[in-house]
């Protein structure tokens, strides 16, 4: 029975627009979610249902209008600088667009080295660590000197994943990680993610509109519908009306 490491409690997010006549649009309402260490939680829902927003809130990239996010029991909004930095490193995000995550003007190597510098690894270890990383995500050394626009979608997504893994996070929020990829590349990516989870005990919050992907990857799943998360027992589809 693994411990709960991330806990979203009663999250609500609403957008207000207009100066005089205010219009309030509620995306999330009283949403709660629990993620245990080393497990995959699949979050499904149609586009526009707010699942990406929920993912960002849980990763600390956006603030909700209400509710709390707890990391190992402590609210991330009450953390001091050092604790929040630690949280940031432990909860990472992989985005949908493979080419977008990496700076188009930097070679893959530079992007990797920036992160290694950030975590304070001494320069003499950079080469070794980068090599280990490439092996883990199934890339060869020759891509290091290339820039994102010279690589395929699959390669870019792997490089982005590799960069995230350099931080050795506890949880990775996977926001539609394979929807922009070809079928065979998607298959490769999903298997790789599963293997990595087995080796590194990383937890995944998998956000996807594709039920098949969630069924393949997730241990537990929930459906985000009208701003609330409805748990799917045993990954049954019956409760989730929007999914085909």
């Amino acid at each position: 029975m693994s411990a709960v490491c991330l806990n979203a409690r009663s999250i609500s997010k609403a957008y207000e627009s207009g100066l005089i006549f205010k219009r309030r649009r509620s995306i999330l309402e009283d949403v709660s979610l629990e993620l245990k260490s080393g497990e995959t939680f699949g979050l499904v829902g149609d586009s526009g249902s707010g699942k990406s927003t929920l993912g960002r809130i849980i990763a600390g990239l956006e603030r909700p209008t209400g509710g709390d996010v707890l990391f190992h029991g402590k609210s991330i909004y009450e953390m001091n600088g050092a604790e929040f930095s630690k949280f940031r490193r432990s909860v990472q995000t992989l985005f949908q667009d493979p080419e977008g995550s990496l700076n188009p003007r930097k070679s893959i190597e530079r992007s990797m080295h920036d992160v290694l510098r950030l975590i304070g690894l001494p320069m003499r270890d950079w080469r070794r660590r980068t090599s280990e990383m490439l092996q883990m995500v199934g890339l060869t050394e020759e891509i290091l000197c290339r820039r994102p626009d010279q690589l395929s979608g699959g390669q870019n997504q792997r490089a982005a994943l590799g960069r995230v893994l350099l931080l050795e996070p506890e949880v990775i929020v996977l926001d539609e990680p394979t929807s922009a990829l070809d079928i065979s590349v998607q298959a490769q990516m999903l298997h790789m993610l599963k293997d990595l989870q087995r080796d590194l005990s990383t937890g995944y919050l998998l956000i996807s509109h594709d039920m098949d992907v969630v069924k393949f990857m997730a241990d537990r799943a929930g459906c985000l519908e009208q701003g609330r998360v409805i748990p799917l027992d045993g990954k049954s589809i019956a409760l989730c009306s929007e999914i085909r």
Partner: protein
Amino acid sequence: MDGRGSCQPFKGLGLQSSLGAVLFILFVIVAIFSEGLSPYDPWARFQPYQPPDIQHILGTNDMGNDIFSELIFSSRISISVGLGAALIATAIGTLVGLISGYFKGLADEALMGVTDIVLMIPSIPLIIILAAFLRPSPWDIALIMGSLWWTSTARVVRSRTLQVREMKFVESARSLGFSDIHIITSEIFPNIFQVVLPKFVLAIASAMISEASISFLGLGDPSMKSWGTMISFAFSRGGFINGYWWWYMPPGICIIAFVFSVVMMGFSLEEDRDDGMRLE
């Protein structure tokens, strides 16, 4: 993806910008190596009012200075004022634009307010007034120009920063935990550089012309030779009336040629942008 035609003498540059670059470099070499290239010391006095001949290619002025030597040495002041002012203007503009565009909110409002105020200040009249009262050196003029001209660069950098800021890789960088300073310098700046460079280059042109104008109006420092002062003296000492074309045509042509070279480089740089960041 080249600029003009398929001729590419230098890697990545089209014909137009290559020509501009060559000319520019020539001028800079002349400015740096003035001592070696000029036949005489520009302050040395010879027989005045000499028309062009073998001894003095462009003749001598009313003080007896060899005009060709003057021309070569004047490049120094003209070019360095141009470069100096452009550097200051671009540096300030880029900084303001980056901070404004990245942090948005209060910083943005404040900085854009300052930009608007500075925009309202008419730069040339101000320089003329200051020059009339304070008799500044060319470096002071460069400083003043730089402090007034950064506004358009700031605007352009700001809007590009606003664009780049929303791109996914910036969000990734934030998510990885990089500091704001790192993101601005390492992630955003390289992506706005393509916008800053042509602005810098064109600012050199503007600065040069302004310096020339001010010197021409007689407000420059008479003890330092620049192309503008040469034309000014040509005017005030009777060169125009007497038709001594070798007094005013050479510096005029130099100004035009230098500005032309700079503009050719600048416009080509603005067009040949393959920044790989099309907004799909």
